[in-house]
Structures are given as structure tokens and as C-alpha cells.
């Protein structure tokens, strides 16, 4: 990891110095072992504090919206899933891609601090380093080593796009994924449940929601000036803690990212009460792939999104040839 960190600091210094960019968006290491927080730096000597480790999970592309409003040229470090989100933001005209310089970071997968805590390794833990498949935990008592990716986030385990799809500079060589991703196992598992069980499962999950809207705020696609749920005048939904309101919010949020969601899993990660929101988005992605062809909601900016277009001979589940019908 250090090789890339050094490479990252060099490129940041160089582009800031030669004025190619005015500001750099990256991560800095906090005092805790799991805390690599996003940071905006414009001072050359701050570039030395930039870091690339197994906890740079935050997607920096959404910060571009506010930063670009300051008419600056911005250099940003983007992982694979972050670059997908970047493309979506360009499609939505939320960012002006000319004024952005992208440093691509092929991502080996991020470590989930919860899993480290469950494994009881967090006592006295100072630093975690990962090189290739080897993970090294440096604690006060000593050093522990593990092989494999058992500590990775679930979303990283079946990651579809580890290598950035768009970048000016690539900071390390591409990462290859061997295990062919199974076809939405989590979604099919829920689909198999009987209807009432599904209803109870989701109502229980939704009832945990405290309407903090963290999922909306982190999502690169939910970038509306004023979200319809914040706009009281729209009269669409209220913050009351009633089942119907929770269901309303979650169904509509999932529907609003339909055909655009890049499956980066950030909504589930940041949800304080742990609602499996990505299962809603992935259900829609699975349906769209089956019905309207595999849309990789990322690569081709020119292609119009699935819900923004139609085909005359689309699958028509409502065309029962009832008596009196034309056909």
C-alpha cells in the first residue's frame, strides 16, 4: 500500500505545483486505525499527509458538486466504484468534468471495521496494512497476519468494477477479479421468501429507520438541490414514524435511483440502524438487466438511462389478452 501512497503524494504535489489543479480531494489518516477521512487540500506541503490504505472507503466524487461550484480545477482520487458514481454525476449534469483531473486507484477491496471488531482484533490496534492478500494487524502486543479477504466489506467481495473506468492518471496496475460474481444471490434469496414473510421482513427493517437521510446524503445519485422529501411544499411524505411513511420513503428512494444506481453499497454502509438498502437497489438492477438488457450504469455516458428511453417491443407483463382486447 505504501508504494501507492507515495505515488499518490508525488502526483498530488506535482499537479498542485504546476497549477494543473487548484485543489486536491483525498484522504488523511485520523488518529483511530480505521479512520481515513476525506480532506480538501490546496497547500503543497499538506500533500505529504495524503494516505491510501484499506479504509479509504468514502466516495469522493459527491464532494465534487459543492467544490466545483467554487470555479476551481480539482484533482480527485477515485476508486473503481467511485468512478462509476462520477460518470453518473456527469450524466446528471451535476459536475463539469472538464475541470476535474482524476487519479485512478485500482481497489483491492476495503476492510470493514465491524468485522475487525467482531474478530476481537481491535484491542490495542494501532495500524492495519494490506499488501496483496496479506493483512497485517500491528497492535501494542504484537503483529498478527491473515491471508485472504475475510475482513472485506460484503459489497467489496462481489465488486463488479475494481478498476476506475475513467481516469487521467492511473496510480497502480489493474486489479483482476477471479471469482465470477454470482447472479444477485441476496436478491433471489428474498424473492424466494413467501409474500407475507417478505412483507414482515421489510416492514421490520423499515421500522428501524430514524429518517436521518444518511443514505440519501451519501448517495452520489441523490444529488437534488432540494430533495422531494425535504420539500414540505411538495406534500409528498412526512417524517412521522408510521409504517406507511417509512415504506413510502424507502420505496420511492429505491425507485428514484432505478436505472442509475451503480451498486456501490454506500447507503447500507452508512445506515446507522443497518437496513440492507442495497438489497432494494439490487433488486431493481436485477430486473432491469433481465428485462431491458445489462446496463452498466457507468461506462457509456452517451447511452440514455433505461428509464429515460423505451423500445417498442419491450416486455409487456400487463398485456393479458382479455376478451375484447384488440389482439
Amino acid at each position, binding site marked *: 500500500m505504501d508504494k501507492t501512497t507515495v505515488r499518490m503524494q508525488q502526483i498530488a504535489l506535482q499537479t498542485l505545483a504546476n497549477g494543473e489543479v487548484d485543489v486536491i480531494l483525498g484522504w488523511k489518516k485520523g488518529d483511530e486505525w480505521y479512520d481515513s477521512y476525506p480532506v480538501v487540500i490546496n497547500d503543497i506541503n499538506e500533500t505529504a499527509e495524503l494516505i491510501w490504505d484499506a479504509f479509504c472507503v468514502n466516495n469522493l466524487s459527491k464532494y465534487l458538486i459543492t467544490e466545483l*461550484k*467554487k*470555479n476551481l480545477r480539482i484533482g480527485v482520487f477515485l476508486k473503481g466504484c467511485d468512478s462509476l458514481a462520477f460518470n453518473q454525476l456527469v*450524466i*446528471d*449534469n*451535476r459536475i463539469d468534468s472538464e475541470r476535474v483531473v482524476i487519479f485512478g486507484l485500482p481497489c483491492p477491496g476495503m476492510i470493514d471495521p465491524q468485522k475487525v471488531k467482531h474478530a476481537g482484533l481491535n484491542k490495542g490496534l494501532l495500524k492495519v496494512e494490506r499488501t496483496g492478500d496479506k493483512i497485517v494487524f500491528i497492535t501494542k502486543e504484537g503483529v498478527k497476519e491473515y491471508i485472504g479477504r475475510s475482513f472485506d466489506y460484503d459489497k467489496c467481495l462481489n465488486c463488479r468494477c475494481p478498476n476506475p473506468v475513467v481516469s487521467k492518471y492511473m496510480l497502480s496496475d489493474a486489479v483482476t477479479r477471479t471469482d465470477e460474481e454470482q447472479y444477485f444471490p441476496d436478491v433471489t434469496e428474498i424473492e424466494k421468501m413467501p409474500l407475507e414473510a417478505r412483507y414482515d421482513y421489510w416492514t421490520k427493517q423499515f421500522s428501524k429507520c430514524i429518517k436521518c437521510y444518511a443514505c440519501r446524503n451519501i448517495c452520489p445519485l441523490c*444529488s*437534488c*438541490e*432540494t*430533495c*422531494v422529501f425535504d*420539500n414540505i411544499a*411538495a*406534500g*409528498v411524505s412526512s417524517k412521522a414514524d408510521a409504517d406507511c411513511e417509512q415504506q413510502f420513503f424507502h420505496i420511492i428512494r429505491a425507485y*428514484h435511483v432505478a436505472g442509475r444506481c451503480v451498486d456501490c453499497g454506500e447507503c447500507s454502509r452508512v445506515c446507522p440502524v443497518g437496513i440492507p438498502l442495497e438489497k432494494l437497489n439490487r433488486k431493481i438492477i436485477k430486473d432491469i438487466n433481465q428485462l431491458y438488457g445489462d446496463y452498466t450504469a457507468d461506462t457509456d455516458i452517451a447511452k*440514455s*438511462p433505461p*428509464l*429515460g*428511453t423505451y423500445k417498442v417491443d419491450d416486455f409487456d407483463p400487463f398485456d393479458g389478452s382479455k376478451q375484447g382486447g*384488440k389482439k
Partner: protein
Amino acid sequence: MPRIGAFVCWCGTNIAGTVDIEQVVQAVSEMSGIVYVKDYQYMCSEVGQNLVKTAIKEWQLERVIIASCSPRMHENTFRKAAKAAGLNPYLVEVANIREHCSWVHKNKEEATKKAIALIRAAVAKASLNTELIAKEIDVENRALVIGGGIAGIQTALDIAEAGYQVDVIEKSPSIGGKMAQIDKTFPTLDCSACILTPKMVDVASHPNINLYTYSEIESVNGFVGNFEVTIKQKARSVNLEKCTGCGICTEKCPSRKSKSEFDEGLRTRGAIYTPFPQAVPNVPVIDREHCLKFNTGKCGICEKLCPAGAIEFGQEDVLVTKKYGAVVVATGFDIIDLDKFGEYQYQNHPDVLTSLEFERLTNAAGPTAGKFIRPSNNKRPEKVVFIQCVGSRDVSSRGKSYCSKICCMYTAKQAMLIKDKYPDIEVYVFYIDVRTPGKNFDEFQRRAVEEYGVNYIKGMVGKIFPAGDKLIVHGVDSFTGDTLKIEADMVVLAAAAQAKPDAEVLGRKLAISTDTNNFFTEAHPKLRPVETHSAGIYLAGACQGPKDIPETVAQAGAAAAKVIGLLSKRKLVSNPCVSVVNEDLCNGCLSCLKICPYDAIAAKELATNNHGITSKRIVAKVNEALCQGCGGCTVACRPGAIDLKGFTNKQITAEVDALCH
């Protein structure tokens, strides 16, 4: 809450029959915002409308609710009444308590409860209505007529006479349509070509009419007053201007295999051909499928012989896009194909003809130059049998359920013409019911029976057995009950009329609907027979349903009158229920722009300054002249920045709340 007046209509007993009006009036008077309630027997009448006008003035009403029949019937009537009383017409809301309530529910108590709910929804919506001012859009004063038969010709002539430009599009190489194929016309027996060709020449020579033959509609966009139509002029391979119509090429063309469509396949024609001698324009067309030059590259005789050098093998299809104010569809009809009617042996015996083939056989310009001979052995037949209702009035999957209206008359005409020229030929007509309702129609048919001795037999033909050179026709006379066996020499089938096979495709291009038989659907069968639900698109002739020439010409005149009425208005009142963008909410994602069917939405740049830094941002902007108010954009817009005037999100939500009250 605005001051709302409600008017509950009895509609005679249509509503009052199954809806308790007093209970409704009582319930409505308690609704919030209602300051005045009145019920009356006929709200749409003069007296009813005056009730509305006086109430608006006396009670300073700011909204008006009419609980009556469908808004599709009288919404305009009540909007005009409100306008006359000084109230903006778009503050009127109609609750449909007739078609959607009293007529479809038997139980009075249920129907009354539903009527109250529907009115509550209308009140909820009306209280959120805003004043809307209809804008004006300009009208392109040129009309388009699709189809060059008698319907298209007559419509074009009437519109051109009123001084407007008309384009006529005809799919086949010449105008004339089915009428050009007919020999004589009922009930006056004057020759079809004699009354048609002068009109065809008028069309060709009229300064206001522009003719596109051998052309098809590629695509239609836009809306009333501003249609943008792309026409595909198929390659004729002959230069229209140079060709003098001398006809040398059509005679000398060596490839004789293709069947002449105009003569219903009774004779063959060259690869380069004009459908019939009086064709307008009298310029041949090369049928590239059968032309040796195109298939083998050798021939080219027509090019060598053409004195005017008009042959151009290299011609390509040309796409022309023009703007029109109105469109008239006059695409006519076809005869059904008889492959499902095996019992008549139409497929495997040359002497069994359809009525259209009979017309060509007896026509002087036809394949036999008018000599009445049997196609099998060229001898004059002694016994001819006509069979009515072949495929008509047939609810099984083989035929059409409707009566084709014109067969009784043209069969009587055909039978009469045979007996007139050859009195010794025996003529039989098998029929179910003779339907001759027109002016002088029944007298005409009775002349065929009484003066010319045509034998009319009430009964259908069961089966036809070819025996030697005769056709044994098995039938039954239902009056006497005897089974009949007639050794006929020729059988003529009065086959049913059906819509053109591509009617549905054209309907889809024009966004007009076709009924289950693929005839175009008129706006209202009794009151608006030549209009469609799409403003600016009219119908004329058999494309709307089987009809004879007198009716077709009448409809053509009616459609022309509608078009002239539309084009005479320099400006058209546009639909004010269009979308509007709230620029504060809009974040410029333009997903609305991507789905707008009329490209009515465009990106607009706004300069914004947050904390002193001015930067640009994009928002959507609606072109109110193009927007047709479908509302598709409002659902694509996630923050709800774009809304549809007249059907805003809040209004529809209020209606839902009111209905679930």
C-alpha cells in the same frame, strides 16, 4: 379556501334515475369551500348555463363544479359559460356522475355515495385550480391529404377551391383508387371513368394542389396547425418532367411476367407500366422486382427507345419533409382475401371471380376490352351466379362481423348490366337480405328484378363443385325449402370490404386509433363522423368504414369544410395545460428533456452566485408552444421541479385524498 359553486345535473332521469339528487345536494353543501349549490334537470341546456352565469356574478364564485355527464361531452360548454360570466374557464371542474356512476351502477344508495365521492374529488381539485390563459400558436395554411382515391381527390379539390395549398399523397403510381377500376356506378349507371377522370385532371392541373404519387408517409410529428410530415417518394426510375406519356416503353418492355394489380391480376403487364390509360400522372413506373435491367443488368430497351430520354435507372427514394396545418386520411378500403372460403373454389377455378375482378372483366379498358367472356375458355357464359355477403355479416373468425353496405347495390348493377347486354344469359343472385336504403336505390334494384328478370334467391350457397367446364352451385331457397343445383358458367362473389392492411401502421404514425376491424375511429359516430380524437386530423371515405361513392364524396366535402375552418384561423388557441419548471428546485439533470415526445424542453443556463462566486448552472425550460401536456416529464423529475398546469402533483394528490375520504 376559494368560493366554490356546485351545480348538480339531473340529466332528465339519466342521473336522477339511480342517484338521489337531494342527498347529493345536501352532502355537497357541507363540503368545505362550497358557498352555493343548485340542482337542475338539464345543466347543459340554455337555462342551465344561465344558472351558472348568474350564480357566478351573484355569489362572486371563484370556482365552479358541474356534476353532470362526462367532461369529454360538455367541459367546453361549461367553460364557455364561465368565460361569458367573467370567470377564467380553467377554474371550472366537471365531475362525471353519469357515465362513470349513474349509468354503471344499479343500487341507488351505492351510486349516490359514489356520486358524492366523485364531486368531493372535483371540489378538492378545483380548489387548487389556477387561472390559465391559452396561448396562441400559428397555423401552417397548407393541408395534407393521404390517399388519392375519390375521397382524397374530392377533399383536395374542395380545399384547393377555398384557396389553400394541398398536397395529395398516393401510394400507387396514379391517383384514382378503386373507383378507377369500376366500370359503371350505381344508381345512375353512368360510366365510372367518365365522372372520375375529369376530377383527376382537375387535381393534376389545379394550381393549389401538389401531387405526390408512388409515395408513402415516412413519419409524422408535431400537432394541430404544425404537423411536420416526412414523405418518402419511392424511386419511379422515370423522370416526371421529361416523360411525355407516349407509352412506347410500356409496349416494348420484354418482361411480361408480373400480374397487373389494377386489373386484379386478370392480365399481365410489363415491368415498366402505367396502371391504366387515363392514369394521372400519365408517367410509367419501373417495377424493379420484375425488371430485367435491375435483376440481370442486361436489358435497358426502354431507355434506348425513349424519345424524351426520361428513363433514369439510378433514381433513388427521396425523403421530403414539409409542414402542414391539417391532415385528412382518405386511404380507402380493400376486398378481403378469400383463402378461408374454400367452399366457393375461388382459389382453384378461374371462373370464380370477386366482384372487383368482374368489374375489370366487363370494363371496356379491361383485359378483354369489354367482351364478356369466361377467363377459363373465353366463351360467353350462359348462366352466371352472384353470391352476396361472402365474408360479410360473418361473426366466425373467417369473415367480418359488419355488413359491407355496398355489395347489394353493385351486385344488382352488375346483374342488370349482363341482362341488358346479353338478355339470354340466366342470372341468379343468392342473398340473405337485400339492403338498398339510399335514394333511388330500391327502385334500381327492383328494376333489375322486374324489368331485367334477374332471379333473386333468398338463401346462401352451400358449396360449388367444378364439374367439366361447368360449376355446380348447391344452394337452398329458404322460402320453398327446396335445394337447388345450378350448373353455372361463372360465379361472382360479393366479397366483404375490409380496412387496408397498413391502416394500423399509418394510424400509429398519426397517433389516431383504429377499431377492432382496423377502420379508423371517428371522434363521435353521430356528431363528429369526419373528425378524430387528435385535433387537426380528419377522416374521409371508406377508411372510416365501408361506404359507397355518394357517401364518400359527402364525407370528403365535410372533411374539407373542417380543414378550411381550421386553416382560416390565422392563430389557434393552444392547450394551456402545459408543463412549467420551478427553477429553484430544478438541478438540471434534464431527464425530463430525454423523454419529452415533442422535444418541448430545452436546457437554459442560469448565472448563480453563492457566497460571491458567480457560476453557471443548467435548468430545464419548457417551450409552451410545443408542449402538449402529456405530463410524462413530471414523473421523470425526481425533486418534482417540473409540474403540469391543470393536473399538478398537488391537485392529483388532493383528488386521491378526496376519493379515499
